[in-house]
């Protein structure tokens, strides 16, 4: 409050002056933070890493000879458990449990999905989550850029050279990889997070391969010609557990920045920029800082998603899947080569430079889980975001609103798990038989399927926090402060430029028009009478 009062005092008196960087300035990294920290160890000199190695777990065992606690730490992270117990809602979330609008679910599809697990060998529900050797160290720490898991290997790289579609997979040079480890770079995290949902840019909208080497315009923090941040510059790690969560988002960080040099386990903008980030000119800064209580930084500073030249999937309609041409599955593409129809997956829509969906968000995300009832006559929110204007924890956030049409159990009105992947007689991608695919998916989780399936419209919200544009590209005021601006449908508050009072406006404009007409009429009368008087 004191700071706010100071701000307005400044705004009132020296509005036009640029505020000097002073006590209010918060600690900001002054130098580019590089992926390659100056390490005190040269891993090529370690006996344990001389090999030979023939598999991932062998390398992990070698790592653990020095980093004795590493696997135990990783075991506690969501990268390993794929399970998240949400304290606020009591729901058990995580990839292991939730249903999404993309490939649906992990259970029964493990070898495919777990190619992005930070481990080795999660082939089915019997995976041993206590195995230290099965932690995959190098997927995050490889600095050679040569380590690659195969898409259907349950987290393992290729054991022998393979070709899948257009992509070739060779077994890694294990010794080279093991000896060239370091702090994770953008491409390490990106090897999974850029390709979620089965392909480049499919899932997030603000994360795709363009973020491996972005320019400043695409991401002001990560840009190679800018601050060159890695993911972990913001997603700070503490014993292999990283800050930031899509399930329990810090929608508003009131703690702000701590003093210079101190590190905070938080991935929020405020953890570096503080709660009064706009500095000059003072009057505009005063108004902009006044938004922070109700508007997330991301809402203005991410003007659009999928800005790096990689489109993001905005619609996935499963209901059209299974069509054949000449008895064979087929694919259709758009002009840019993006799949628009696959017999295995249905119909897609891809978009670039997508304007986000905006909504009140208190950080809490409530999922529609397979045990929850749905109303199939309406669009089902696969995950529901909560918050309102009156909620002091909530702010207006930008989202990718993923449109879906996906299978559900008509008998129970519940979403379903489906088996899509596998060389077996149930997987949809092999057999194109919905009831059997759903039956197998549900059975793998020990759940029942009524046998009757239908398709329901769904929407899934993905909060946006990446592709933060330079300030000159952030939204203009009138992007929202306009009759049909970006926040036209965000309810619960009065916004200048967007809102009017219908009747007040009608009465007001009528009063002004009436006054104008009245004086014109009176003036004309005067003119007329003065002529008459003069004529006498």
């Amino acid at each position, binding site marked *: 409050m004191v700071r706010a009062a100071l701000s307005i005092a400044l705004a009132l008196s020296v509005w036009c002056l640029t505020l000097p960087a002073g006590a209010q300035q918060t600690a900001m990294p002054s130098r580019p933070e590089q992926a390659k920290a100056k390490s005190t160890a040269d891993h090529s000199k370690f006996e344990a890493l001389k090999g030979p190695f023939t598999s991932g777990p062998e390398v992990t065992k070698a790592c653990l000879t020095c980093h004795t606690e590493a696997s135990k730490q990783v075991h506690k992270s969501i990268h390993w458990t794929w399970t998240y117990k949400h304290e606020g809602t009591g729901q058990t979330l995580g990839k292991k449990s939730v249903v999404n609008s993309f490939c649906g679910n992990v259970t029964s599809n493990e070898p495919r999905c777990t190619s992005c697990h930070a481990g080795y060998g999660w082939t089915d529900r019997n995976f041993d989550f206590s195995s230290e050797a099965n932690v995959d160290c190098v997927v995050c720490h490889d600095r050679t850029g040569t380590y690659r898991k195969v898409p259907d290997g349950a987290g393992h790289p290729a054991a022998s050279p393979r070709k899948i579609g257009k992509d070739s997979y060779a077994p890694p040079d294990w010794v080279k990889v093991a000896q060239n480890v370091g702090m994770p770079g953008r491409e390490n995290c990106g090897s999974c997070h850029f390709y979620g949902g089965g392909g480049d840019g499919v899932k997030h909208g603000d994360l795709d391969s363009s973020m491996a080497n972005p320019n400043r315009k695409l991401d002001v923090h990560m840009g190679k010609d800018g601050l060159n941040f890695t993911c972990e510059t913001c997603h700070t790690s503490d014993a292999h557990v990283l800050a930031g969560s899509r399930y329990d988002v810090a929608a508003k960080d009131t703690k702000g920045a701590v003093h210079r040099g101190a590190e905070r386990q938080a991935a929020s903008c405020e953890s570096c920029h503080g709660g009064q980030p706009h500095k000059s000119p003072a*009057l*505009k800064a005063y108004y902009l800082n006044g938004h922070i*209580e109700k508007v997330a930084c991301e809402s203005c500073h991410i003007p659009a998603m999928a800005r790096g030249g990689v489109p993001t999937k905005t619609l996935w309609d499963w209901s059209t899947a299974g069509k054949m041409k000449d008895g064979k599955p087929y694919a259709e593409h758009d002009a840019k080569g993006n799949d628009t129809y696959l017999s295995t997956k249905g119909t897609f829509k891809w978009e670039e430079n997508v304007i986000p969906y905006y909504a009140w968000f208190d950080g809490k995300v409530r999922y529609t889980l397979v045990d929850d009832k749905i109303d199939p006559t309406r669009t089902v929110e696969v995950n529901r975001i909560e918050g309102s204007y009156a909620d002091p924890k909530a702010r207006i956030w930008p989202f990718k609103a993923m449109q879906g049409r996906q299978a559900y159990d008509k008998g129970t009105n519940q979403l379903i798990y489906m088996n899509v992947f596998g060389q077996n007689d149930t997987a949809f991608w092999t057999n194109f038989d919905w009831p059997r695919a759903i039956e197998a998916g549900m059975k793998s989780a020990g759940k029942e399927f009524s046998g009757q399936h239908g398709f329901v419209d769904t929407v899934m919200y993905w909060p946006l926090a990446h592709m933060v544009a330079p300030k000159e590209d952030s939204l203009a005021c009138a992007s929202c402060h306009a009759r049909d601006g970006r926040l036209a449908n965000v309810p619960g508050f009065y916004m200048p430029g967007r809102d009017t009072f219908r009747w*007040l406006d009608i009465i007001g404009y009528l*009063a002004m028009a009436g*006054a104008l007409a009245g004086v014109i009429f009176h003036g004309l009368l005067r003119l007329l009478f003065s002529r008459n008087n003069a004529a006498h």
Partner: protein
Amino acid sequence: MTQRSDTASPLVPVPKHKRTVMIYSRYERFWHWSQALLIFVLVFSGFAVHGTHSLIRFDIAVSVHTIAALALIVLWVFTTFWHFTTGQWRQYLPKSGLFQVIRFYAFGILTGAPHPYSKSLRRKQNALQSLAYLTFMVMIGPALWLSGILYLTYPLWNRMVGQAFGLGAVAFVHTAASFMMVTFVLIHVYMTTTGKTVGHYVKTMITGYDTVEMDEVEEAYLKSQGTRIFR
């Protein structure tokens, strides 16, 4: 039609003469014209913020509106001070003869009837003017600056619980008062054309000089003060 002074009526009528004298002091004219300019700027930028027009960018409108509003508040603080130190506030006190003035503007002005009020140094405004200006200064003005200050300081109180529609209420009052302001200005500007000539009142407000009735005592007093009086 009888004329009453706003001070105690003299027991013996004193003969009055028409004299040309400065009736609007330099400060009063400065106040009037700078206020006029600021109000024009505020109306233009304010209706841009309101979304009535989009002739200027929203952020520019907000900045211009804020600066002009702060300037106007400063001007009003000085002017309030001026009104009380000079005693000019008495000019706004309600007067009798309101109906006659209204009737004059409705009919008399058309038929060439004389104005029912004659200007004096102590009574610069007729009854209708006083009522209009008083409404402007105690109702429309305060409604605008009170709601405007709340509007301006919204970032300081938007954390308060239960203020969900606070800004809406503030904006409602501010918008309603601004409609009244514009209505006032439109009529006010037109009324300036109703003097001896179309430009007479405007000229008076620019030069400060007008011809008023004054008695010999007033004339002598003003002369002793060094005031220039033209016959």
